[in-house]
């Protein structure tokens, strides 16, 4: 009656998992077990509390040996979670792992339904389809591909730096690509780090120079990944190196050219200092920039605009390092794995107009204040407001662009802590009265709550309530010439007006504007809020759905420096684990041509995005190079003569699944002896 896959008649073992209460509370697993026992081909049908546990897996193995099972079906959770587990168990018992098939009755049934009878029916349908399907399963050979030991890291913030050093120290080649002119990322802008108040530069800059001088690291700053193709183990990457109009190998960072620029005064906003200071058209991002190489800003340099500059900078350079005709160059590299550590951006405070950022000069973002309190910042560490005064009172508003229906719903995790840190630093620098306006204080972390406690003892004020507005509307003399913060103090239940000299907006973290372009480039997913999506939020937090591409740091979600560093280490370990294994097993779901049916119509050839299909002129048949095939199955669906076959997703297998779901819903149960448990 059925195709029996050669000579061996299918002897199917069926196992339905309770998953504790996760499945059993809504699906009558016994009923499913009994029902499946009546289906043709089923020799063993059992239910068990946790199929994925060791005893559960041993159950399968024992049955394979004792009852000569040659097909295994497990109804439990999603195959994305445990297909691998059960395949390994099947293989251990001496059966080809691809005789196993999984039925998802947790994510697709018990977790999304609420009626026991219906859930049980749906489980039976799905189980029946799988039983029909495994009749057509075939033994397959695993496909392995070698791993190129070189690693590409995109983004040179603390995450990228940490990952690069870890991998390079393990003796593997790293390409670190950074979009800006220097590595260091946001951390380089910070003054101190919470809660230990370590100087950020003191702990970061040694790492930055280690990256620069490491023999295993190729550092390309002012560069972007333009194109990537290939797959895990063998990615081909094209990197664009943007022109900085200075020859990197020749420049020693003496800055004579900057001195010589015909602009005697710096007059363009300095990006690194958040526009609080000025730079020239030729500049170094900051004193510890790595690499220590100057660059030109063609937008502001006179010579780029009018070609009539005296070019005093070129005269000043005795190493002839300046090349105003420089153009972008491209590097092509092959790597086996990739770590994305592209970071975050801060929320644009102008989008919350009630706080007056951009309208009142003395409203600052937290990142601006980081520069303001920094000894190497625009004011040399003096906290002076834009109108040149030293503030006597400062209000720090938490959750700007976080936990807000109107902007971002998520908590940015770091703002409470950095607001405490800034409160401490501002108080230390100015002796001002500092007010923190918070919704909830969130200080989970080693030493964090203690830091909060310390701040309360330092006399920083804490007002619980989301600030309504920052206004220059004065109703009493004390408020004149000040910014008044209007807030409902929810602990005492009154609306308060607190006049201050300076307002700091604790802006939240959000995905970079072009995160979705990067996501597309690397073929990974984003979660709803726009951060890169991890493979599993708990068990695979640095993996993505694309093999060989890992994520680290705030590009995956808001996080602080310790978590970022830990995650970077994890991503590095994932790369190293692939590298030291030397190869990776891939799903053998490739397609192949059944030559005797192929009519040579060539319909399939243009469909393949990987050019895996070619045409054999001598026999007038198509040919699929399995090494290039990624197993999407598009050609299989398009072949008019049905002469392409995709392993694991053969036509027969899918048709039998469809039939199993629909046609055989009412067949008479077969009376036979089946092992129950």
């Amino acid at each position, binding site marked *: 009656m059925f195709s029996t896959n050669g000579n061996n008649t299918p002897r199917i073992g069926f196992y339905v998992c309770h998953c504790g209460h996760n499945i059993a509370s809504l699906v009558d697993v016994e009923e499913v077990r009994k029902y499946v026992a009546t289906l043709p081909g089923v020799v063993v049908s059992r239910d068990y509390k946790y199929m994925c546990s060791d005893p559960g897996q041993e159950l399968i193995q024992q049955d394979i040996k004792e009852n000569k099972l040659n097909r295994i079906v497990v109804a439990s959770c*999603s*195959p*994305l*979670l445990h297909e691998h587990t059960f395949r390994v168990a099947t293989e251990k018992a001496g059966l080809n792992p691809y005789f196993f098939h999984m039925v*998802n009755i*947790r*994510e*697709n049934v018990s*977790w*999304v*339904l*609420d*009626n026991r009878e*219906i*859930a049980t029916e*749906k489980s039976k*349908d*799905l189980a029946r*389809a799988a039983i029909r399907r495994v009749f057509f399963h075939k033994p397959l050979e695993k496909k392995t591909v070698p791993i190129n030991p070189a690693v590409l890291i995109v983004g040179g913030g603390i995450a990228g730096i940490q990952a690069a050093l870890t991998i390079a120290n393990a003796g593997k080649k790293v390409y670190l690509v950074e979009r800006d002119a220097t590595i260091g990322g946001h951390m380089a802008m910070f003054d101190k780090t919470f809660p230990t108040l370590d100087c950020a530069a003191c702990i970061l800059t040694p790492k930055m120079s280690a990256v620069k001088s490491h023999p295993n690291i190729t550092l390309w700053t002012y560069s972007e990944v333009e194109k990537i193709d290939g797959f895990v183990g063998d990615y081909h990457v094209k990197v664009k190196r943007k022109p900085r109009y200075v020859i990197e190998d020749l420049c020693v960072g003496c800055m004579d050219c900057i001195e010589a620029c015909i602009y005697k005064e710096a007059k363009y906003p300095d990006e690194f200092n958040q526009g609080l200071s000025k730079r020239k058209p030729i500049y170094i991002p900051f004193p510890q920039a790595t690499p220590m190489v100057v660059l030109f800003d063609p937008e502001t340099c006179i010579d780029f605009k009018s070609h009539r500059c005296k070019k005093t900078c070129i005269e000043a350079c005795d190493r002839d390092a300046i090349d105003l005709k420089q153009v972008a160059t491209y590097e092509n590299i092959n790597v086996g794995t990739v770590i994305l550590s592209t970071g975050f951006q801060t929320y644009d405070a102008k989008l919350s107009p009630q706080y007056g950022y951009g309208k009142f000069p003395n409203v600052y973002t937290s990142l601006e204040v980081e520069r303001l309190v920094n000894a190497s910042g625009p004011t040399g560490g003096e906290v002076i407001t834009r109108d040149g005064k030293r503030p006597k009172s400062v209000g720090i508003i938490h959750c700007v662009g976080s936990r807000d229906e109107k902007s971002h719903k998520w908590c940015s995790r770091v703002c409470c802590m950095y607001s405490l840190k800034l409160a401490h630093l501002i108080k230390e620098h100015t002796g001002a009265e500092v007010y923190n306006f918070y919704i909830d204080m969130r200080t989970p972390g080693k030493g964090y709550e203690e830091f909060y406690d310390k701040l309360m003892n330092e006399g920083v004020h804490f007002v619980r309530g989301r600030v309504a507005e920052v206004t220059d509307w004065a109703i009493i003399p004390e408020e004149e010439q000040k910014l008044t913060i209007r807030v409902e103090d929810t602990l005492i239940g009154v609306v308060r007006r607190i006049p201050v000299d300076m307002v700091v907006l604790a802006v939240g973290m959000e995905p970079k504007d072009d995160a979705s372009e990067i996501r*597309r480039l690397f*073929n990974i*997913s*984003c*979660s*709803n809020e726009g951060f890169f*999506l991890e493979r599993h939020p708990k068990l695979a937090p640095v993996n993505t*759905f*694309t093999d060989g591409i890992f994520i680290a740091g705030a590009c995956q979600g808001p996080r602080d420096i310790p978590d970022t560093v830990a995650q970077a280490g994890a991503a590095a370990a994932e790369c190293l684990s692939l590298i030291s294994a030397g190869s990776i097993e891939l799903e053998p*779901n490739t397609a192949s041509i059944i030559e005797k049916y192929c009519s040579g119509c060539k319909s399939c050839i243009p*469909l393949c*995005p990987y050019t895996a299909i070619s045409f054999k002129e001598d026999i007038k048949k198509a040919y699929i190079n399995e090494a290039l095939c*990624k*197993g*999407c*199955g*598009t050609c*299989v*669906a*398009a072949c008019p003569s049905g002469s392409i076959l*995709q392993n694991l*997703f053969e*036509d027969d297998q*899918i*048709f039998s*699944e*469809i*039939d199993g*779901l*629909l*046609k055989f*819903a*009412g067949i008479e149960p077969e009376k036979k002896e089946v092992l129950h448990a």
Partner: protein
Amino acid sequence: MHNIEKKWEPKIIAFFCNWCTYTAADLAGVSRLKYAPNVRVIRIMCSGRVDPQFIMQALASGADGVLIGGCHPGDCHYSEGNYKMLRRFRLLQRVFKSMGIDEKRCRLEWISASEGDKVKTVINDMVEQIQKLGPLALPERMADLDKEIEEIEKEISKEEVVEHA
């Protein structure tokens, strides 16, 4: 069997691509979103794998609707499998029209891995839609058709007998 008395419920077969929509369905599960129980999902690697015959076969075997879920345009794990599916889908809709099958019975949706709630809304919406359309019941209709043809054939053969006589 025993469900003759029950109210008719649509049967929908869904083909979800492994990378986006199947993952989204998993997310819907993990988020405990409740949705209509009428859909049975078949996992494939890419929506490009969906052979029009799968859809035809599903309807012919008694499905009232077929749902195909793939990655958003530009997001396909295999670059462009979803575009190929879209092309096929458009042609297929014309075929359905000419066969007198309502186009709404077959639906193609782009659902990314993070859109668990979209899985819920699409499925609920589709179930509601098919409920309005009523049963397709192709197997029954084809059986009736077979019977009719049989009867006509009988008639013809009778006539032939008469003529010969």
